[in-house]
């Protein structure tokens, strides 16, 4: 991390520094710009730089995703805790109806999502290896096996979404509508938001898998898979968070 390194360097002198005349020892290769490629100005577009850039981008994306889900969780808990003022009884009563979750379906979905996470990780690793070999100039035939993994991940991903739709439908058939009770609204809200985010990840994976036809450079394909895998694992983690929330805090 550049920050650490400069701090050590700069703050030897007890002054506010930075603003003014060159108290900072001149040293090459500080700051972000060239961290990936010390002293090799031309490869600004080098793979390292691009990978680094997209990783940062994804990290930031995860930051706001987190913000949103934390907010929703806050709402859920807030609403669960709060009651409604009962006009007749002149007292606070809670109107939160505990909803019966179709656990079997939910667990199968969770399993599917977990599997997809695993296969995506495999896809990512094979690509990583393949890249290393490519760097050496030799790509052994068995290394062509990254697309299958991606394909399987896609299938599982769509499987999970389909599963969620089934969950919503079964709830609907039990007469549990979005509007029928706050507990319902929040359940649909949390799972729905999660599904939307996951769909975004699926698009990215489609893009990576379709690399062949989009004539993507292997490098771009590799980067896409890399960052999407971060996103994907994170969403899997979030899913279990949501599951735990609606299970343990079901009122």
């Amino acid at each position: 991390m550049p920050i650490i390194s400069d701090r050590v360097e700069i703050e030897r002198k007890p002054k506010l520094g930075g603003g003014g005349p060159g108290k900072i020892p001149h040293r090459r290769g500080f700051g972000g710009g060239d961290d990936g490629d010390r002293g090799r100005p031309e490869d600004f577009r080098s793979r390292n730089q691009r990978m680094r850039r997209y990783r940062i981008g994804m990290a930031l994306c995860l930051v706001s995703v987190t913000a949103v889900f934390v907010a929703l969780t806050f709402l859920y808990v807030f609403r669960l805790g709060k009651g409604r003022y009962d006009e007749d009884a002149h007292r606070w009563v809670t109107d939160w109806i505990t909803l019966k979750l179709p656990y079997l379906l939910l667990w199968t979905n969770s399993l599917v999502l977990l599997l997809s996470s695993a296969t995506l990780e495999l896809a990512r690793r094979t690509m990583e290896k393949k890249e290393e070999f490519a760097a050496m100039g030799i790509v052994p035939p068995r290394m062509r096996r990254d697309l299958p993994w991606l394909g399987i991940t896609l299938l599982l991903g769509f499987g999970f979404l389909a599963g969620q739709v089934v969950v919503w439908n079964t709830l609907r058939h039990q007469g549990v509508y979005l509007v029928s009770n706050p507990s319902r609204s929040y359940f649909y809200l949390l799972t729905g938001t999660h599904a939307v985010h996951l769909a975004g990840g699926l698009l990215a994976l489609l893009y990576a898998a379709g690399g062949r036809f989009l004539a993507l450079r292997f490098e771009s394909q590799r980067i896409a898979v890399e960052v999407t895998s971060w996103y994907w694992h994170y969403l899997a983690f979030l899913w279990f968070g949501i599951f735990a929330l609606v299970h343990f805090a079901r009122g």
Partner: protein
Amino acid sequence: MSVALRLALLLVVLGCVYLFLAHPYWFPAGASSLSGLIDHQFRIALWVFGALFVVGHLILVWALSKKPHAGGMASQGSWQLEVTWTVAVTIIFFWFNISGDHLWSSMMPPAKHGTEIDVEVTGAQFQWYFRYPGADGAFGKTDAQKFARPDEGNPLGIDPSDPAGRDDIVSTAMIVPVGHAVQLHLRAQDVVHSLFIPAMRFKQDTVPGMEIISHFTPTKIGAYEIACAELCGLGHYRMRAVVRVVSEAEFAAWLKQHGSF
């Protein structure tokens, strides 16, 4: 240019100071048990921050007028100064902040001790309704959606089948006896309103779905205007009412007069 800028800033300061000293408009005379304390706190606030405003600008003007010292390198800062003024403003701001805490706690709903007058306030687009529990001291149930008939004298939707509601008094003006703590039960029928009684230094939003308990104690006989302070729609600006602070006897008479319908 330098001179002009400094003059302009000084002019601005003078103008502001003059405006606040002349203050063509100011707080309405306070009429509640707390208004004295609150006004005192306001006086502190305005003097302290007014002073900071003047001092701040004087320092700015002075800095602008300071001639550059020839040669040598301009300062890039000094921790001593940073610490000094940080500590200084921290002390000023937090002293001021803490000095207001006891006021806030005294404005919070106190434990009920029976002597206070209960008034239920309901905000509705764009009218205030004030309900008194009547002789039995109990408010009748309401269900606005079922029973509200503004034209038939039942705007709040008091449940006709509830005996406690029979003797409730609903008025469009708030009548309260002087010197009594008034316990307000604030509610709203449609959107968020805010009951603002400047003379009592009182303001509280009324939120649909909530009953908010709040209180004030009028200390001067008279009529004081109530305004709505939360945007509630087209009529927000004319959602006006009056609180009439009367003597105990008058209040009792008024209750008797309206007690039965």
